[in-house]
């Protein structure tokens, strides 16, 4: 089976799930914040939806994922890297919320911007060229995954969470994050697959990673400015 056919099948399967999730959560989207504050006890479907929504609309996470899979051609490799990313961000999302540890959201988001810059440079072979060594790409995805998880945790911690059913709700949010990631990833993979087949890809890969790096710098500057203006 080609990657294309597999990806398409995956997309259709995930879209099916997505529709159910959206239907269950209908009417919640307008008042996410209010819902989170007022929810009492276990509310699995809404928290799954919120997690998925956060991931699908979270451009910082998506840019990093885009960088990670840029030169991954085999679905097996995509699976390994995305799993490492998921393990990383799940660990710190759960730890961050359940331990109640507070990390400055601006600093975490600035590091997430840095992760985008890092991955773009990695894609360009900059570390090999500059330092003569290739840093372990899997370790990098796992470690930056940890910071992405703290970023997810700070978004939830903006709200006062009800202690009743907290663990189940956070797990549901995390499941939603993974569903959202799968959805977004499928779309990115489909687009990448078409792009890679085109002759222009080889020429455009350098410029694309330059732009990715630029976007990472913008995210960093945005968050660092936020850190200093609200301090």
């Amino acid at each position, binding site marked *: 089976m080609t990657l294309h056919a597999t990806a398409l099948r995956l997309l259709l399967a995930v879209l099916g799930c997505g529709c159910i999730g959206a239907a269950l959560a209908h009417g919640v989207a307008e008042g996410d914040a209010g819902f989170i504050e007022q929810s009492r006890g276990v509310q699995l479907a809404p928290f799954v939806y919120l997690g998925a929504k956060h991931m699908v609309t979270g451009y910082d996470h998506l840019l990093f994922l885009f960088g990670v899979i840029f030169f991954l051609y085999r679905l097996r490799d995509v699976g390994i890297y995305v799993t490492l990313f998921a393990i990383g961000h799940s660990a710190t999302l759960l730890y961050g919320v359940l331990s109640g540890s507070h990390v400055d959201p601006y600093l975490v988001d600035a590091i997430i911007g840095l992760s985008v810059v890092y991955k773009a440079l990695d894609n360009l072979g900059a570390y090999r*060229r*500059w330092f003569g060594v290739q840093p372990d790409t899997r370790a990098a995805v796992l470690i930056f995954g940890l910071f992405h998880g703290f970023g997810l945790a700070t978004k939830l911690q903006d709200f006062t969470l009800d202690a009743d059913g907290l663990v189940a709700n956070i797990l549901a949010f995390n499941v939603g994050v993974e569903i959202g990631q799968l959805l977004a990833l499928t779309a990115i993979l489909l687009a990448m697959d078409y792009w890679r087949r085109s002759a222009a*890809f080889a020429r455009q890969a*350098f410029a694309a990673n330059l732009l990715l790096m*630029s976007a990472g710098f913008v995210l960093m500057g*945005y968050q660092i400015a936020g850190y200093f203006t609200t301090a």
Partner: protein
Amino acid sequence: MHDISEQHPEQLPSARSLRRATLLAALIAAAVLVTAVLPAEYGIDPTGIGRALGLTSLNQAPPAAAPEAPAAAPPATLVKRAGELRSDEMALPLMPGQGAEIKAVMAAGDHFVFRWTVAGGAVSFDMHGERHAAAEGEFTSYWLGEAQSAAGGSFRAPFAGTHGFYWQNDGTEPVTVRLQTSGFYEALFMP
């Protein structure tokens, strides 16, 4: 290796072109930040381009709006009522130690404005309401006060029943309470 060398197997980009690419990426980012992101998000606009593009207006949303509204039920600006507008005035003489009531028969949502004044002294009072056919001693107090010689306000009946005032003369001289009401209610009476 999962990097650009898969596209260009012969060699990686040169160190020089990588440095230039990084510098270019940083310059693009700086330009976007200074002209768009910082003006729009934080109102920081060193070049004036953000203002020229109208981006700084995104940062000028009225900040006072949020704390202004109290968390408790906001008061209704408009209370619509059908029926005749009534105006009543009653005087109630009270001997030292004596207490008495004036009340209005009201449906839920009925509304009046009121003012009462005490001639010759001060009173303690309890503004309260009872449901129709309420048991003895079953009532809701709205406003309690002591040693007052005047009070006024506006009242909306939370439930159908009789709503009004109990005044008591705590002084040593006789007093007269004069009550004026105007609004939508069925009748004003002394029980």
